[in-house]
């Protein structure tokens, strides 16, 4: 029972982590609080659904299309919408408010387009819904795949950020956007890349989620909120933080469902989240800026 709960928890947490990593890049490096993040996820889920049901393209191959598309979309959105906001922002707080308002608008646009295109129906398809047995526990193959992808993406990005010059530049912007230009970093370009990268990850998350979860055009906000919680809990801009916070939340949910009461899973999530914040106000891996 313990092993089963542990593995199910990790697998569930893998999804949370995957979804949250993109947001942590966007908020931590590009400083954009993207409220339309969940809608980007759902758009990718619809894309995967369309490719699967009309072209018969399997979702893993679909990643090859969805992720670059998400990256491009993020790149364009940042260039068109966020650059002017960043340019006129006097301080971090005013950019935060502006980006909240602007992406709140974007959320509705995305949602509206999806509603007009796909209607409000529950959408789902079945892919890799096969049992896999690990340590005597039966798990769904598509969820295990999600965990693997989360680890691959997380690990890959971590290496990218820590081992390459380009990644170092991104991290420098995250730590101190004011000082980064002094060492020759184009902050705007770095932020744009980070935002696009985050959108690409959102697309990846959307494709993976579509493999096993039912979604509607309006269910994006659920993902935004889960992702935000993971991001904040892990420490803004911290990939490893997002990864571990995601896994912790998954474990908490599964353990509470198994040993306490399934009715309290969400309450437990928020309780853990709130207590982590009270204990470490900047998140598990974050440093307080002020």
């Amino acid at each position: 029972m313990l092993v089963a709960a542990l593995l199910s928890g990790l697998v569930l947490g893998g999804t949370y982590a995957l979804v949250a990593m993109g947001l942590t890049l966007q908020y931590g490096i590009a400083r954009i609080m993207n409220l339309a993040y969940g809608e980007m996820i759902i758009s990718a889920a619809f894309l995967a659904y369309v490719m699967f049901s009309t072209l018969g393209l399997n979702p893993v191959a679909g990643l090859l299309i969805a992720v670059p598309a998400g990256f491009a979309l993020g790149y364009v959105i940042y260039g068109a919408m966020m650059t002017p906001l960043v340019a006129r922002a006097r301080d971090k707080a005013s950019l935060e408010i502006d980006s909240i308002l602007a992406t709140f608008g974007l959320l509705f646009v995305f949602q509206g387009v999806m509603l007009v295109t796909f209607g409000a129906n529950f959408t789902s398809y079945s892919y890799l819904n096969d049992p896999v047995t690990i340590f005597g526990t039966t798990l769904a193959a598509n969820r295990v795949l999600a965990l693997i992808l989360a680890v691959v993406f997380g690990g890959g990005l971590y290496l990218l950020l820590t081992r390459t010059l380009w990644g170092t530049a991104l991290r420098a912007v995250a730590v101190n956007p004011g000082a980064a230009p002094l060492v020759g970093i184009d902050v705007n370009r770095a932020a744009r890349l980070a935002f696009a990268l985050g959108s690409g990850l959102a697309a990846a998350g959307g494709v993976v989620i579509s493999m096993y979860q039912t979604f509607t055009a309006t269910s994006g906000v659920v993902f935004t909120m889960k992702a935000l919680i993971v991001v904040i809990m892990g420490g803004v801009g911290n990939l490893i933080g997002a990864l571990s916070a995601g896994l912790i939340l998954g474990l908490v949910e599964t353990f509470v469902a198994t040993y306490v009461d399934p009715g309290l899973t969400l309450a437990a999530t928020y309780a853990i989240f709130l207590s982590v914040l009270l204990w470490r106000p900047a998140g598990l891996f974050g440093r307080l800026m002020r």
Partner: protein
Amino acid sequence: MKNLERRRVLRAMALAGTVAATGLLAGMTGAAMAQDRTSVKIGYAISKTGGNAGGAGITTLPNYKLWVKDVNDAGGLELPDGKKLPIEVIEYDDRSSAEEVVRAVERLATQDKVDFILVPWGTGFNLAVAPLFDRHGYPQLAVSAVTDKAPDFVKRWKKSFWMLGGGHDYANALASILADAKKAGTVNGKVAMISVADGFGIDLVTAARPAFKKAGIEVVYDKTYPGATSDFSPMINEAKSSGADAFVAFSYPPETFALTQQAQVAGFSPKILYLGVGTGFPVYGKNNGENATGIMSLGGIDPNNKMNAEYRKRHEAVTGVAPDYWGSVITYASLQMLQEAIKRKGLDKAAVSAELASGAFQTVLGETKFENNQLRQLWWTGQWQNGQFVGVMPADRNGASKVILPRGDWKKK
């Protein structure tokens, strides 16, 4: 100093502007039309966005569209003098908010002065607007509202009609199926039960507990989960090891889909599997194919009812999606009842309400009439058989199919 004064003036202007805006809108209320009518105005507020959009988008909205098209294609709504008037639709989005739906219906009644108002989706929203329908004299044909309190509501709001039964009806039907299966030795009489922590799930589960007890069914696992749960493996594992060979979930569509998939993964194949809303969605049958066979839920249809079959075909052709097997056909039937009542009594709301309460109507369900303002000719339990979701309870109703138990094991794809 100057600056401060300017602000004060601005503030005054702002407030004056607010008053003006409010007054203006109030003034607009007066304009009414007294000319010869060229159309019948029908209005509705429905959740096009927000959390309820999924449910409204499958059960309610397509049927409104289909009905309006059907009526207008046939030349319009027929009045007692044989004259036909086309339907003019006024629709609002309630954005899944109780406050919005109240305001939208108020607007339909007092501002647009529509002739009839169709109901919103969901138990809570139908109750929220019930006092308004009552105050403005509109008949309320509440379809997607499951409530045991319907007899009380009918006393409170005389023109309200409740068309989907209550939790007890569904729970009792299920209990009697379980009891029969136990008597026949098909199952061991132990049941694992989960329910969504929402009005629907709680209504049903609180009705099911005493019903099962009375039927001699032992509930060995009984938990409630929060809405939008996506991972059911802990609950499925518990249910699997609980010794129950019947599994009941009073769930919402996303969870119904997830449960079906995750039960297959976990190799959990109870002899009786009963799931909640969503089981009767056409996409459920499509996605699960052979594996859907034997799964039970609320609702169902009579597979031999020609009119219903024809309705299903037309629904798919016109709206692009197939209707669900529970509320859809009832929604359409409610509209046909309204249409027929208007044909008999005209556009007088009180007369139409009285006719709805007392008359008998020919609809896609067959002959349909209200008992104490409630529709009672419903399928309390249905089961997937041969690619259709057919009604099995009440077993003595005309057109009932026989329950097939136990359901087979999951088929490998």
